[in-house]
C-alpha cells in the first residue's frame, strides 16, 4: 500500500473536498471534522515516508494509471507516456512543511472564521488549496504542475476575497488572480517550447535529453519568471501587500505557504534544467540579485507602513530574499568545481532551505496574531492601537516569540538559519552578508515598532474577547515548534535539510 502514497496525498483531500458540499448540507460539525481528518491523514502519510525517503534514501515514483505504477517506462519504451509523480528528499521536506502548517492553520480557521453557510465553501476551498499544494509538490510532469498551480491560485484568490462585504477584498482577489493568470500563461508558453522540441512533459526525461539550444534557454526563462512572480520577488511584488493584508488571517498564512511552494518549483526547475543548459551560474547570479533586491526593498517599504498587515506583507517579501540568496549562492558555485561548493555553497543552500521552513513557521504565526489584533481593534492602523498586552498576555507572548524569531534573536529558529546564511555567504562575497545583517536589524526595528504600538501603552478602552480553544492551541503549537527548532537545530538539519540539499544538488 505504501507505493500508492504519492497519489493518495492528492486524492484524499480531493475526494473529501468533492463530498464536502453534500456533507455541509447535512451537518456543519461533521463537515468541519471531516475536512480536518483529511488533512490529518495526509500529514500522517507524509510522516510515514520520513523513514523510507530521508533515511533509506529511497525515491518514490508513481505512474498514474499504469499497470505497474512503480515502473518508469512501459513496454520497453525509453520515455514515459503517463503522468509521473515523484517524491524525493527535496519534495518530502516541503510536503512535511505544507501538511503540518496547513493542519495548524486549519485548526485556527475552524474557530476563527465565523460559522455560517459561507463557511461550507470556505472549507471546500481550503481543502482544495491543500490538494493544489500537494499536487505541485509531487508532480514530476510540467503540465500537471501547471494544472495544480492553477488550482492553488484560483482557490487562493477566491479565499482572499472571502469578506466580500468589505470594500477592498474583492479587488485584492482580482489583483492576485490577474498576476497568477499572467504567470500561468507564461509558464504554459515555456512548456510549449519544451514540448515542441522533445515531445514530452516529464521533468526527468527532459533533463536527460536537453542539450542547451536557444529554445531551451528561452523556455527556462519562461518557466522561472512566472514562478518568481508568484513568490513575490521584488520587481514583481506589487500584488503582495494587497493580497496579504486584505485576506482573513489564516488565509494570509496559507497564501504565504503557497508562495513558498512556488519557491519550491523555482528551485527545482532551476537546479534540474540549469546545469543541463549551462546556465546555472547565470541563474545563481540572478537569484542573488533578486534576493538582495527583495531583502532591501521589502524591508525599507515595511519600515514606513502604518498598517500592521501590510507591514508584515512587506516583511514576507524581504524574507523571500534570504532564501533566494542562500540557494542562489549554492546554485552559482555548484558547477564551478567541487571544492568551493563543498566549502560554502552547500552550507548556503542548507541555510536557504532551513530558512524556508523557519520562515513559514514564524510568518504564519505573525499573520495569525495580526488577525487577533485586527479583530480586537477593528482596524489595521498601528496609530490607533495601544495596550493590548494589559489584558491579552497570551497574544503578546506569542507575538513576541514570532517577532524575535523573524528578527534573528539568538534562542529562536530565525537566528540559526540566518547565521548559517551569513557565515556561508561571507565566503562568497562579504558585502552580501553586510546587507543581510543590515536588513535583519531593520526588521527588528520595525517589529519593535509594532510591538510598542499594539501591545504597550495605555490599556485599551474595552476588554478583548477570550479566544476560542483551537485558536490558542494552534498558536501554542507553532510557538513550541519555533522554540524547539531554535534550541535544537542540529536534529532537524540532519534529519530533513541535509538529504534535501543533497538531492537538490544532484538534480
Amino acid at each position, binding site marked *: 500500500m505504501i507505493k*500508492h502514497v504519492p*497519489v493518495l496525498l492528492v486524492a484524499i483531500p*480531493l*475526494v473529501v*473536498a*468533492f*463530498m464536502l*458540499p*453534500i456533507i455541509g*448540507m447535512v451537518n456543519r460539525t461533521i463537515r468541519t471534522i471531516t475536512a480536518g481528518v483529511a488533512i490529518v491523514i495526509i500529514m500522517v502519510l507524509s510522516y510515514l515516508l520520513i523513514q523510507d525517503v530521508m533515511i533509506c534514501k529511497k525515491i518514490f515514483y*508513481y505512474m*498514474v*494509471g*499504469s*499497470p*505497474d*505504477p512503480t515502473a518508469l517506462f512501459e*513496454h*520497453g*519504451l*525509453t*520515455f*514515459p*507516456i*503517463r*503522468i509521473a509523480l515523484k517524491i524525493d528528499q527535496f519534495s518530502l521536506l516541503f510536503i512535511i512543511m505544507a501538511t503540518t502548517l496547513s493542519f495548524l492553520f486549519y485548526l485556527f480557521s475552524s474557530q476563527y472564521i465565523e460559522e455560517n*453557510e*459561507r463557511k461550507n*465553501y*470556505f472549507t*471546500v*476551498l481550503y481543502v482544495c488549496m491543500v*490538494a493544489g499544494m500537494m499536487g505541485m509538490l509531487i508532480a514530476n510532469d510540467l*503540465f500537471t504542475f501547471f*494544472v*495544480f498551480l*492553477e*488550482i492553488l491560485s*484560483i*482557490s487562493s*484568490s*477566491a479565499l482572499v*476575497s*472571502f469578506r*466580500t462585504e468589505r470594500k477592498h477584498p474583492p479587488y485584492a482577489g482580482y489583483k492576485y488572480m490577474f498576476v497568477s493568470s499572467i504567470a500561468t500563461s507564461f509558464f504554459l508558453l515555456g512548456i510549449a*517550447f519544451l*514540448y515542441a*522540441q*522533445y*515531445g*514530452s512533459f516529464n521533468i526527468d526525461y527532459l533533463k536527460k*535529453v536537453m*542539450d542547451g*539550444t*536557444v*529554445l531551451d534557454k*528561452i*523556455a527556462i*526563462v*519562461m518557466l522561472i519568471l512566472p514562478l518568481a512572480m508568484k513568490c513575490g520577488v521584488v520587481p514583481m511584488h506589487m500584488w503582495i501587500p494587497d493580497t496579504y493584508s486584505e485576506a482573513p488571517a489564516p488565509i494570509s498564512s496559507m497564501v504565504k505557504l503557497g508562495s513558498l511552494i512556488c519557491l519550491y518549483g523555482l528551485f527545482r526547475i532551476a537546479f534540474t534544467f540549469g546545469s543541463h543548459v549551462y546556465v546555472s551560474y547565470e541563474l545563481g547570479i540572478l537569484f542573488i540579485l533578486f534576493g538582495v533586491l527583495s531583502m532591501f526593498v521589502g524591508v525599507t517599504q515595511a519600515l514606513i507602513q502604518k498598517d500592521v498587515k501590510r507591514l508584515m506583507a512587506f516583511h514576507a517579501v524581504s524574507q523571500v530574499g534570504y532564501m533566494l540568496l542562500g540557494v542562489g549562492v549554492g546554485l552559482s558555485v555548484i558547477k564551478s568545481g567541487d571544492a568551493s561548493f563543498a566549502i560554502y555553497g552547500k552550507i548556503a543552500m542548507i541555510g536557504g532551505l532551513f530558512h524556508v521552513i523557519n520562515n513559514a513557521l514564524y510568518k504564519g504565526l505573525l499573520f495569525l496574531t495580526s488577525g487577533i489584533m485586527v479583530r480586537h481593534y477593528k482596524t489595521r492602523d498601528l496609530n490607533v492601537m495601544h495596550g493590548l498586552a494589559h489584558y491579552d498576555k497570551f497574544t503578546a507572548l506569542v507575538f513576541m516569540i514570532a517577532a524575535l524569531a523573524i528578527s534573528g534573536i539568538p534562542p529562536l529558529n530565525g537566528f540559526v538559519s540566518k547565521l548559517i546564511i551569513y557565515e556561508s555567504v561571507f565566503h562568497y562575497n562579504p558585502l552580501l552578508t553586510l546587507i543581510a545583517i543590515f536588513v535583519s536589524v531593520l526588521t527588528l526595528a520595525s517589529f519593535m515598532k509594532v510591538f510598542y504600538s499594539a501591545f504597550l501603552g495605555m490599556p485599551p478602552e474595552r476588554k478583548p474577547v477570550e479566544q476560542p480553544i483551537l485558536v490558542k492551541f494552534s498558536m501554542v503549537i507553532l510557538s513550541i515548534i519555533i522554540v524547539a527548532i531554535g534550541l535544537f537545530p542540529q536534529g532537524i538539519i540532519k534529519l530533513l535539510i541535509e538529504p534535501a540539499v543533497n538531492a537538490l544538488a544532484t538534480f
Partner: protein
Amino acid sequence: MRLISVVAIVVIFGFIFVGILHLHPIGEPVGNPRILYERPPLGIDTQGVTIMDDYFLRNGQVETGSNNIVASIVFDYRGFDTLGEATVLFIVVSSISMLFFTFLKSKSIVSAGVPRARQFPRIESRIITFGAFLMYIMILSFGIYLVVHGHVSPGGGFQGGSVMASATALLLISFYITRHMQRTRKIFSFFESLGLTIFIGMGFAGIGISFLYNFLAHGTTVFGKIIPFGPNPGYLISAGILPWLSLAVGIEVFFGLSLILVTLFHASGVKNNL
C-alpha cells in the same frame, strides 16, 4: 512606469519571436535534430517510436479500446490532469457560490415570481419561449450525444457538458427561471459533487493496480471489447472506464457551468445589491 512596461513587453516579444524562428516549420514533425525521425506508417508496435505522441497514435486504440485518441489521452493516459481540471471547475463553482451568497437570499427581478411589469426586458413573447424550448431540447440532446459518444467520435465530457450548459443559458434568457434559487443551488451542487465523486471513485476502484487504472478494458467484462487496430465504426460499449469517466465529467461540467450561469444571472437582477 509606462516606459518600463513597454520595454518589458518588447523584450518579451523579442524572446518569443526568436523562439518561433527556432521552432520547426508548421506541418513538419516535432523535434530537434536529435530526436527527428522519418515517420513510418501507422501500425501496432513500439519499435522505432521515439516520442510520446507516436506511441499514442500507434497503440492508443488497441490499449484503451477507444477510437478517439484524444479521448483516450484525456481520460486514460493523462487522466490525472483531467481530474485537476475538473477540480478547477469545481473550485470556481464553489467560489462563485461563496462570493455571491448574499445575493442568492434576496429576490431578483429576473425571477419568474416577480410581477411581469418589472421584468427586463419587458416583452416575453410566446414565439420566443416556444422556440427556445425547442432549441433547448435539441441542444441538450446534442450535448448528451457528445458525452455518450466521446470515445467513438469527436466529443467527450467537457465538450458535451459545455454544450448542454449553453442550453441552460438559452433557457435563462428566454424564461427567466431563477425563482427557487436556494433549491436550484442545492440540487445543482449535489449533482456536481456526484459527478466528481463518480470520477474519483472510478479512480479509487482501480487502486488495486494503480490509481485511475483502466481496469474495465482488456478484460472479459462488458466494457472490455477488443477493438482491432485501424479504421472501424467503433462500439459504444467499449473502452473500459472511459465512457464512465466521460459521463461523470459531463454531469459535473453541465451542472457546474449551469450553476455559475444561474447564480450570476440571478444576482444580476438583485436590485439593492446587498
